[in-house]
């Protein structure tokens, strides 16, 4: 990899890490798993960077890679987690019932998003990252109109989920 590309990679790691991690944290709930997912995303960015031709904005390109890798990694994790899934649900609900405060609301939001269907999860994380409908449509291979319809429906579901047990 040439020095310019290396520099670009360092800039991505420095400036985009939080965005990548936020998306990863929707697809995994334990810190070490989020971190593993994040490493995998970075690894794929590193591999794909020489092929980036600037046809889309670098951020859109990053979101595509992040979403693809998180989704793929999640499929891997689901297998390991299946046996613990029933316990997970109980523990999460207890946490949200017993703890108060804004940080908990934020955690609750991530929890509610993680319970959405995969396509809805992808749409809403990109929306909350501030992407325009057109960019979300480009990343997911949808139409702009459909993205709009999806978002308003998902938001209703999210508000409902957040209000259900928020303190």
């Amino acid at each position, binding site marked *: 990899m040439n020095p310019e590309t290396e520099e670009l990679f360092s800039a991505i*790691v420095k400036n985009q*890490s*939080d965005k990548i*991690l*936020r998306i990863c*944290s929707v697809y995994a709930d334990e*810190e070490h798993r*989020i*971190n593993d997912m*994040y*490493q*995998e995303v970075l*690894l*794929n960015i*590193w*591999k*794909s960077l020489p*092929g*980036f031709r600037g046809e889309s904005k670098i951020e859109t*390109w990053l979101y*595509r*890679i992040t*979403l*693809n*890798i998180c*989704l*793929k990694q999640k*499929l*891997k994790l*689901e*297998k390991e987690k299946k046996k613990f899934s029933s316990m997970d649900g109980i523990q999460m609900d207890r946490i949200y019932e017993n703890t108060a405060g*804004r*940080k908990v*609301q*934020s*955690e609750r*939001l*991530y929890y509610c998003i993680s319970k959405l*269907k*995969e*396509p*809805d999860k*992808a749409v809403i994380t990109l929306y*909350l*990252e*501030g992407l325009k409908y057109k960019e979300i449509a*480009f*990343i*997911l*291979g*949808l*139409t702009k*109109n*459909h993205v709009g*319809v*999806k978002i308003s429906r998902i*938001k209703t579901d999210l*508000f409902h989920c*957040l*209000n259900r047990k928020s303190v």
Partner: protein
Amino acid sequence: MNDQELFDLWNQKRFESLWTDQNKDRLDRSISELDKFKKTISRRNMREIVVALILIPLFLYMAVVMEPLLSKIGAVLMVFAAIWIIYKLIAVSKTRIEPDANMDVAEYLTGWQRYLLNEKKLLEQVLSWYILPILIPAILFIYGFTAFSIWFLIELLILFGIAWLIFWINRKAIQIYIDPKIYDLEKTIELFSDPDFKDDD
């Protein structure tokens, strides 16, 4: 709750503790492990190709010097088998292309599914492209000079044992690693191509 509050909650999550020098080391290690993995695969292919290349002159020589006709036929067939395996290994390494992560989600998942189906097909067909092309000439070659004897039966048993082991390992790899992944991918692809998700309203 309004939209802005939703955005605020989303952006509130912080990860300062996650990116450290230790992570940088891990990433470096992952990159070098990936390179190592690729090198291991190409070294394994190279090793198989080198063995096949050694077998070609060896069995050509055998075909000339061995007297029994069946051994001669077996040796010639073994040469063809070696050439076939070299061709197959090279062809397979060319088709092993992982999908580009810079695709839209549905394309990317379908790309992975295609990649895994190719791997599955390759492992399923190991009998026809790897085991039988070697096993048949080997049996002919040995039978040519041992004829039907206790030694022939022992060698036959060993050959079948090895062939069965290779076949079994490949089947297990399909059952344990590939099929569950293909199933999970299928389920996710279905969700992404659900008319409710895909159709324009």
